[in-house]
Each structure stands twice: as C-alpha cells, then as structure tokens.
C-alpha cells in the first residue's frame, strides 16, 4: 500500500490521506481487498474481504488494483538495501499463514548489532531509515527466524527476545501456519503457542503426521524454538559492471579514455553474457565535485563502438573545473544477451541496426522525441492513436471503415461558417483569414462523445469532408446540434486536411 502511495505521489496524482483507499486483487468471486490505508482501516475495511461488501460499508472507498509482482520486486530490492545493517539479508516473500500479502525482510544480525550501539538502538535506527523511504515497519529481534516472525507480527513494538516466555501468549497463527491448520488447532482448543508447547510431542506428531512440513505445527514450533535449524539464505547481490580509469594527472577532456572504458565494460558484460540497457558515466573532479551523464539503449548491447557513440556529443556538457582524475563507466541496468550469429551471407542485422538508430536519436534528442503510433480503441479521432516507444510490438491496426484525413491538426481550429440549413454542410467557411467556398462535400459522419470518460455536457460531432474550388480538401466538424441543450449555437471546427 505504501509503495503504491509513494508511486502515486511521485506521479503527482496522490489523493488526500484521509480518503479511504484500498488495493484489490482478483478473487474467485470478484475483487478481494489486498491492502488498506489508514483511513479505510478506521472505516472498518478489512483485508481479505470482498470489495463489493466493503463498498456497502464505506461508499467513499477508492479502489485500485494491486500489483503483487512489483511489490515482490520492490521487496527484493529492499532486501539488498538492508545490507547496510548486516551482510546477511533476504526477502521473506513466501505466503505464510492466512495473512495475505504479509511479506517481510529477514536480517541475520549476528555480530552486527554492536556496530549500531546495541540491539535496541539498531532497531530504532532501522525504523527511522525505513520511514525516510516512506515505509512503516514492525521490527522484532529474536534468535530464530520463526520467533522473529512471530514477535514482529504479534508481539509488542520493537520487541527484543527476552526468553521463551515471550512466545507463549502469542496466538497459534504466529507459527506461520495456514488458515486451515489454525482453524483446526482452534477447534481443538489450542489457541496460543503456549498451549501447543504444553502438549506431549508424541500426540502432536501423531495428529499431524500427514501434514506437509510447512503446515506441521510441531515442526514450526521446533523451528521457532531453535530445535530445528532454519538458516537464512541470502541471495547474491546483482553483479556490478563497472570500468574505472584512474588518471595520474587531472585532465579536462574524457573523450580519449571513453573507448578504452567501453571496451573494458563490454568485456565484463561479454563474460557474463549480458548487455547494457542503461549506462552512467561518472566523472570525479579534483575539487570533489561529481558529475554524471546517463545514456540508454533500446535493446541490450555490448558493442563498444556503439556505446561510445551514445556519449559522443554529450561529453562537452561536463564542466571540467580544475580537471578530473577518475572516470568511471557503469552499466546501471543490464539484460541477458546471448551471443548471436549473424547470417552467413554477411548481411547486417536489421533489428540491431534499427535499435542502434533509436539509441543514437534518443541519446541526442531525448527519450521522448522518437515515437511510434499505436492504435487505440476509440472513435474520437484524437484518441484513436497513442504514442508508444519505438520498436515495441504493436497491435494490428484496425482499418477504419470511413475515410480519415492524412493530417490532423494538433488542436481543432474554430472556423466561421455560412450554411444553408443548420443541420447541413457548410456553404462557405473562413479559416486562417482565408475564405473557402465549398464545391463538394461528403457526410455527415456522426461521432458521439464517449460518456465513460468525457465530461458531462460534451457535445457530439458531425464530421464533413469538404472540397473547395481549388481542390483543397478539409475535414470539418460541427460540435453539437441546434437545441440539444448543451450550450448555445453549435460551433464549427476544422480538424484535418485530406491529401
């Protein structure tokens, strides 16, 4: 929920905090609530309930779709980020228990706490750091994974393990069991971990002999108390591809060092079978200033000449100051790229050439300059096509049955029109201080407003294709009808030009 709120804030369309908002996922019987914000929680909206029921409870509820895949990716990035406190961190993204979406981080802080001034101070520091990222956190410190999991979710704030007695009052759900097993335990009258621990092991083992290990209360209990080992396996940090040039004397122009850096970087990438998507050239000046230039590729690439080209005209943007003595080139985003065979005839690879062209143009004119039209499902002409990134696969163009002009004006321009009948075609019109007499016309083609996204009161359009004496062909429309109750007399606009 909080990741979504930060994203919304960054894109500038965040809603006020006191509006109840939820994220939902698709359940078997319609959308199910996945996460709630504070206002929604206070309004009584619970996680796991159906969206339709909660709408009845709280009509002002704003719903959006959750994105669990991105949540998981963000969690893994956060696990890497948490290496600042200890070297052994992992993301705990296994759906444990009946609590949907209860993800967490697990940090093995053995031997690291003294660096932060003790365990309590370390927990406080962690919570403060996470809150600067915009995340709230519940932290707990315990000798085993299971105990820390239980204390973080069901224990007091910033709980620190004092002894096995801490766990006894916690509910059975704190053993990372799924909802079915917890329900079974509750029916047997075993509501807390203490109740379970008091039972003879043999009867527990016999009762749950067929349960899978993750749902077996005895195994979970042993993991929590440390009788069964449950090591944390920390994933390797993603490899860093980086080439440095350390210079004996400060220099002012990095151009001559760039090919060498690119070659070194490409060698590293080739060994790992990866290609760079984003590059960052960082220049460290002698007076301590750091400046960087970024470049991006449309397709992963590890061709040194091409990478040099991306930086070619942008190096003069660096302010050298008193010169710089360290240049580093880093591939900040990489993708897998196998070795590829160019065909035997020795032809050049067209897709590769195109991607290089896109990169060069994007490096020079910015990423948004080059676009590709993408047909969109709409009858309103200006909404019928969207801009997409070049080289992306496009859906097939649905042919429009009626004729469309070759060129559309960016904004329809209002024209002054003389007509014989108000519903009919124009007889004469004036556009850009020139008058045109209509010799032939075709139409009208009526395009109704899209009520699901237009503002109320939007008027329909009647499009005419007209031609004047000299052969200029235009696409005009009349906005609205006489007496349709949506404003005064209809206005006329010129929208496009035919070939």
């Amino acid at each position: 929920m909080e990741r979504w709120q930060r994203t919304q804030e960054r894109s500038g369309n965040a809603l006020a905090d006191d509006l109840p908002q939820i994220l939902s996922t698709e359940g078997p019987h319609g959308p199910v609530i996945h996460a709630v914000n504070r206002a929604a929680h206070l309004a009584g909206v619970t996680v796991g309930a159906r969206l339709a029921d909660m709408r009845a409870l709280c009509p002002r509820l704003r719903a959006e779709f959750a994105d669990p895949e991105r949540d998981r990716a963000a969690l893994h990035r956060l696990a890497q980020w948490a290496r600042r406190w200890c070297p052994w961190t992992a993301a705990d993204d296994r759906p444990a228990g009946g609590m949907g979406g209860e993800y967490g981080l697990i940090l093995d802080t053995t031997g690291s706490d003294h660096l932060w001034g003790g365990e309590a101070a370390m927990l406080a520091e962690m919570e403060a750091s996470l809150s600067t990222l915009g995340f709230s956190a519940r932290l707990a410190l315990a000798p085993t994974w299971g105990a820390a999991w239980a204390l973080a979710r069901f224990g007091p704030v910033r709980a620190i393990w004092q002894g096995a007695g801490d766990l006894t009052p916690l509910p059975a759900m704190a053993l990372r069991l799924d909802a079915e097993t917890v329900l079974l335990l509750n029916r047997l009258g075993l509501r807390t971990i203490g109740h379970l621990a008091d039972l003879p092991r043999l009867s527990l083992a016999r009762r749950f002999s067929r349960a899978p290990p993750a749902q077996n209360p005895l195994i979970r209990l042993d993991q929590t108390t440390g009788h069964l080992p449950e090591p944390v396996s920390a994933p390797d940090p993603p490899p860093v591809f980086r080439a440095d040039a350390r210079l004996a004397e400060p220099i002012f122009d990095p151009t001559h060092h760039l090919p060498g850096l690119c070659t070194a970087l490409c060698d590293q990438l080739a060994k790992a079978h990866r290609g760079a998507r984003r590059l960052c050239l960082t220049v460290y000046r002698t007076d301590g200033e750091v400046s960087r230039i970024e470049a991006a590729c449309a397709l992963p690439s590890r061709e040194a000449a091409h990478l040099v080209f991306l930086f070619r005209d942008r190096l003069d943007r660096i302010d050298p100051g008193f010169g710089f003595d360290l240049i580093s080139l880093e591939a900040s985003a990489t993708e897998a790229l196998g070795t590829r065979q160019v065909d035997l005839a020795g032809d050049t690879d067209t897709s590769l050439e195109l991607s290089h062209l896109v990169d060069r143009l994007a490096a020079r004119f910015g990423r948004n300059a080059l676009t590709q039209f993408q047909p969109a499902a709409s009858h309103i002409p200006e909404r019928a096509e969207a801009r997409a990134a070049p080289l992306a696969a496009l859906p097939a163009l649905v042919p429009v049955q009626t004729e469309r002009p070759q060129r559309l004006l960016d904004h329809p321009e209002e024209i002054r029109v003389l007509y014989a009948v108000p519903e009919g075609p124009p007889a004469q019109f004036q556009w850009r201080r020139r008058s045109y007499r209509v010799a032939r016309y075709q139409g009208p083609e009526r395009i109704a407003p899209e009520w699901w996204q237009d503002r109320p009161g939007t008027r329909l359009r009647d499009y005419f294709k007209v031609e004047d004496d000299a052969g200029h062909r235009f696409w005009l429309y009349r906005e609205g009808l006489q007496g349709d109750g949506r404003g005064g007399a209809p206005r006329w606009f010129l929208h496009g030009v035919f070939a």
Partner: protein
Amino acid sequence: MDVIPCAMFRKHAYPMSQSPRTALPAGRAEATLTEIFPAAGAEAAATGFVVAQLGQGTAPVLWIQDRGAQRETGHLCLAGLGLRRPLMTMQLSRPVDVMIAIEEGLRCKALAAVVAEIRGDPPAVNFTAMRRLAMRVKATNVPCWLIRQAATAGLSAARDRWRIATLPSASDPDDRRAPGDPRWQVELFRSPSGQTGTWVAHYDRRTGREAGGAADRLDLVAAIPDGTLAEDAGTLGQRAGR
C-alpha cells in the same frame, strides 16, 4: 487529344524513358534525395504523394517534422495515411535538429525511407547540408524525401525536385456531390535525366485500402496544356484507365 495513361511503378508506361528513381522499395535500385515543394494548402497532398511511393514491407519509415510544420499543418494521422509500413515519427523543434536527425536516419540501412518536413527557408537547409544528405543517400541507398513547406526552390543538391498543387478531385461514382479520389498537379522541375514535365497525379483510394494494392495506386497523366479536359472533372481519369 493525346492522353498517355501510365502508372508510376510500371516501367513501360512511364512517360520518362525509364522508371523513376524515386520508386524505391521493390527493386531498391537507386535511392535518391528528393525535394517536394507543396503549394500553399497542398501540404497534405505532398504527404499523400510521398506515402503513395513508399510501398509496403516491414522496414520502417522515419518521418521527421520540425515545429513549424507541425504547428501549421498538423501531424500525421495513422488511420488516414494508408501507409503499409511501420512508422516512426519524430517531432523536433529546430530545423538544424531535423537535418541532424535525417543524417542519423540515413546511416541506418534498415530503414525504408526517411521523410522530413521543414517549414520555411531556415539557414540550416543550405546547399552544403543538402549535398551531405545526397552523399549519405548514395552511400546507404536509403531514399530521402524532403517536404519543403512554404519554401523557395533555391540552390539545392537534390536529384529530383517536385512541385505539387491540389486539383479538384475526380468524381465519386457513388455520390456525385462528394469529393472522389484526390488529384494533384505535380511538376518535376529538376531531374538529372533532364526529362522534366508536368503531370496530373491521380491517387486511387480504393486500391490503396485493399490489401496489396499499394504499388499501383498513383497514376501520372500528362497534363493537358489547354485544360479543356481538366475542367470536366472525372472524364480524365476514366479516359486514362481505358
């Protein structure tokens, strides 16, 4: 009255001695740098004229506009364009950038063509720049079209230079009051072969809309100097098809 029927891409019917070098994609024989000077109000006609000659295939077309051209004559409308190739568009603010972008595009052999629209007579579009483009076209064999809106036809290194103006359209067989297939008056006023002339181009919308008809949709008919036929819109096209 002598009317020569001819289709742009049929070798035998073309009034010039050989098929035009502007016809690019099928044979890819020899690409050229071509300039088109639309008359005022005929900018869309120039668009249609170029699109009709781009052919079909999977190689994309790079279409570059400067800000003046986009503000005055709008952007391309994909649904109405009838282009049978992928299209990549660029909107740039300065004519200098447009020239640089054309040159970058002409480096790439995977493109089908580079089309650029520049409005006015900016100093960036001079003889030297055109010469560079012409050399680049020759090196990579990617055709380049420059649509020079509201420009004067000064000194240039383009091999073919056209002027284009609108004509009243052919009559629509289904509806007498409606504008039919568009017709343009095109004038090739400079060509290395010296065979310049004026034609009436007839753009066939129907074949254009059906699959596979892209190659034959532009007909060039020799212009009639006395204009008696031209006044009677419609008969010219019918006679040309006979």
